[in-house]
């Protein structure tokens, strides 16, 4: 099937304004009759639930954490982009749009990205109004910094905790609506199924994580803002509870999963210390503003103390390979370059999977105090984890799975191919293409939540009758029975391996074979291994405890079961995409000097997969991408 993104036509600058006018509205008096279910309360979900509640809709919001304030958006450190052009350095909505399309390696929809760039400015204003304490100068004006390879300073930040502050802003707006009674919050509640009635999303089945009870919730629309899926790699920078479950349940009910192979591996993470590690810790990309990446030129030097390696024996590989961007090369490029050095056996630290990020040059230039002021909290965090002082000795960093550009397929209105099912933020595939630029995730989450969904959902709701399907519908009962059966099946495997052992096994296959660089052979190996691990899970896993109680093993088992199905589609997508673009690097498709080779002729499309059942071939649907405003070009950062 050729998918239609339903993007508005005409001059790109006018698309969003025109579309907003063209869309249908819901009468203010009727809004409260519509019930909207919001799953996830991060930036997109929290902002969306708050805004929809304020508009007068009857909103119910769900999150697995004990508070809406704890969603993993909170962990974003660096900042949020906006085209304010406060520093007068040549930024504009058009430039932000252009950079995002190019940064995404020409695999995103132009109109969606334009809209993102356009509303980016409103986001900053909104957050300021909520009391988000952005960094400011002594006169009181908002401060900006350059971030993640951008050549303009368009990133707004709140120390090293921008995500936290933005999320707390959205959370405060949500809290206000909860108090006002327009939003009902269901914390410690996990969505375990999507209920589809006659092809239309009409509700969800959730598990109360405290009592273990399964509950049905009807809604006139279901909005998923459930984040990304990189915990499929087991070790990632995501929170432990992040999973593909909500999105995957929707996929199993017919929603298409787009571009799952586009995953971002973040270059500046603390390297793995051992095999007992449970997660990887990211340090803000802003570190690369003043740090220089290097590895020893000679393999023999790798075990030496970095101070003992003379300048001429150091390979500042990013500066060497990308003279104009140097250490600020985009994430995918910086990550892959680090991997190359380690594959060349010139990595440092335990297991030789690490490169140095050295501050000596900057400390000599601006002084240790300035560096402390800029990155003090990051250096502190690094020391806590590694017990090394990065002022004295270069940091060791290594890439780690961080963000998923892929996600459920949505049209311009953020609605999936299942009518009534909307998807926001990281959970959808829409704006980042094959690679996300730094400080753009926060922007997208809040754009979708504050400014997109409140408009586009009305267009859908205006065309339906509210409350036609309630919890007494047979589909709800059926869904509960199915989930119940699956839960009981898991609890009765009584095997030998634990859930986390099997998750580690899956993660190791995904990281080795479907990680930063993928080949035909590695992907085929993964496609052989994933079903094996899945079989082992269903035959030899030990899921302890009962269904009707707080049972964290059962929660993890359910999430792993979904990852085990999803991983196969992920690998298939990577195998089918015979090109290298952004976060998807196929070793067969590279230039002589190791750069990614895109194939615009054959792959300038969104690959959206329809799941047909375990063990069955998923069906690929394509949405061709047209570039009318940005010329397709080789993405070069040399």
């Amino acid at each position, binding site marked *: 099937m050729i998918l239609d993104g339903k993007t508005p036509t005409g001059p790109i600058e006018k698309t969003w304004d025109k579309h907003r006018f063209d869309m249908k509205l819901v009468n203010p008096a009727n809004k409260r009759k519509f019930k909207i279910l919001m799953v996830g309360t991060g930036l997109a979900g929290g*902002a969306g639930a*708050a*805004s929809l509640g*304020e508009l007068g809709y009857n909103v119910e919001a769900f999150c697995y954490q*004990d*508070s809406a*304030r*704890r969603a993993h958006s*909170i*962990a974003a450190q660096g900042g949020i982009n906006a085209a304010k052009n406060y520093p007068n350095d040549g930024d504009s909505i058009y430039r932000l749009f252009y950079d995002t399309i190019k940064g995404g390696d020409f695999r995103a929809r132009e109109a969606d990205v334009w809209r993102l760039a356009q509303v980016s400015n*409103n986001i*900053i*204003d*909104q957050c*300021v*109004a*909520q*009391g988000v*304490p*952005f*960094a*400011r100068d*002594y*006169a*009181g*004006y*908002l401060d900006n910094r350059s971030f993640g390879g951008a050549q303009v300073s368009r990133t707004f930040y709140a*120390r090293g*905790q921008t995500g936290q*502050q933005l999320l707390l802003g959205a*959370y*405060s*707006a949500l*809290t*206000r609506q909860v*108090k006002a009674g327009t939003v009902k919050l269901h*914390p410690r509640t996990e969505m375990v199924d999507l209920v589809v009635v006659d092809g239309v999303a009409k509700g969800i089945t959730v598990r109360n994580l405290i009592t273990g009870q399964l509950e049905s919730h009807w809604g006139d629309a279901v909005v998923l803002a459930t984040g990304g899926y990189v915990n499929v790699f087991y070790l990632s920078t995501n*929170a*432990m*509870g992040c999973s593909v479950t909500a999105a995957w349940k929707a996929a199993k009910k017919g929603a298409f999963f787009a571009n799952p192979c586009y995953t971002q591996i973040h270059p500046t993470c603390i390297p793995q*210390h*051992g095999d*007992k590690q*449970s*997660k990887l*810790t990211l340090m803000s990309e802003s570190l690369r503003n003043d740090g220089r990446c290097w590895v020893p030129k000679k393999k023999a030097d790798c075990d030496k103390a970095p101070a003992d390696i003379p300048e001429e024996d150091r390979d500042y590989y990013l500066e060497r390979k990308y003279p104009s961007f140097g250490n600020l090369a985009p994430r995918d490029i910086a990550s892959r370059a680090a991997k190359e050095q380690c594959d060349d056996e010139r990595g440092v630290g335990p297991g030789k999977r690490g490169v140095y990020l050295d501050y000596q040059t900057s400390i000599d230039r601006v002084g240790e105090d300035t560096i402390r002021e800029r990155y003090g909290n990051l250096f502190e*965090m690094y020391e*806590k*984890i590694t*017990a090394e002082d990065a002022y004295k000795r270069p940091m060791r960093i290594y890439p780690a799975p961080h963000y998923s550009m892929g996600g459920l397929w949505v049209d311009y209105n953020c609605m999936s191919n299942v009518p009534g099912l909307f998807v926001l933020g990281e959970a959808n595939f829409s704006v980042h293409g094959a690679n996300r630029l730094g400080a753009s995730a926060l922007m997208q989450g809040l754009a979708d939540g504050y400014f997109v969904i*409140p408009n586009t959902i009305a267009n859908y709701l205006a065309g339906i009758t509210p409350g036609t399907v309630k919890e007494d519908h047979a589909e709800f009962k059926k869904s509960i029975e199915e989930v119940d059966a699956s839960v009981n099946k898991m609890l009765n495997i009584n095997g030998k391996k*634990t859930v*986390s052992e099997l998750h580690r096994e899956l993660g190791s296959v995904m990281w080795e074979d479907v990680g930063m660089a993928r080949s035909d052979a590695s992907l085929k190996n993964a496609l052989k291994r994933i079903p094996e691990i899945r079989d082992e899970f269903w035959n030899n896993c*030990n899921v*302890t*405890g009962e269904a009707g*109680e*707080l049972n*964290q*093993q059962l929660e993890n088992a359910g999430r792993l079961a979904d990852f085990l199905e999803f991983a196969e589609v992920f690998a298939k997508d990577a195998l089918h995409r015979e090109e290298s673009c952004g976060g998807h690097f196929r070793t067969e498709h590279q230039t002589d000097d190791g750069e990614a080779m895109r194939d615009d002729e054959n792959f300038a499309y969104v690959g959206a997969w329809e799941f047909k059942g375990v063990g069955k071939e998923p069906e690929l649907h394509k949405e061709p991408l047209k570039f009318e405003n940005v010329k397709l070009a080789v993405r070069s950062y040399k």
Partner: protein
Amino acid sequence: MNLTLHVWRQKGPQDKGKLETYPAKGVSEDQSFLEMLDDVNEELIKSGKDPIAFDHDCREGICGMCSQVINGKPHGGQERTTVCQLHMREFNDGDELFIEPWRARAFPIHKDLIVDRTALEMVMQAGGYTSCHTGGVADGNALLIPKPVADYAMDAAECIGCGACVASCPNSSAMLYTSAKVSQLAVLPQGKGEAKARVKEMTDAMQNEGFGNCTNHYECQEACPKGISVKFIAKLNREYMKSMA
């Protein structure tokens, strides 16, 4: 290294609960505290026992989910550190560790080390926001906020809402948590308008949720993994006085 753990086990809110002893063997000093607990849980599962339930999520010290009192200190007592960022190199071979949940009437225990922190939510709902609408707000630079003010607000805004302040307080007061939000919004021009109502409503909510009163023990400041200062409680008191004027 090898450790002995005394962990609070409690099946549910009605259960009495007690400390149970487990060995933690072959602990690496590079592991985080929670990774050590993960390993203990793997062993418990393999020996047919119920693993220890504990709250955790981001494991990078920002989500505020983790909540354990280790040897009488919330989050283990390392300065500006949550349990998930506490590493085993802080401990020694042969150590005995007592691991307990947050204890306060306002935080009933769900299971083992997991407590119900809804009470903190209720405090926030009482006024921890500015009543701005989505859209239709002024430009971000329309109201100037000089750096010292922005920094002050940010110092307060760093609160992760974990509840260590309550857990450490001899009175189980949530005053540090409440004061951080009151102070942040009181100094910003966007929050000033509602400051009077906010301070009253949030402190009343704190009281009604079953938290105790602040009697200036300052335990909270020491226990806070984000180093939130009790100067914000002083600020809250000032705000309260202003609200009475």
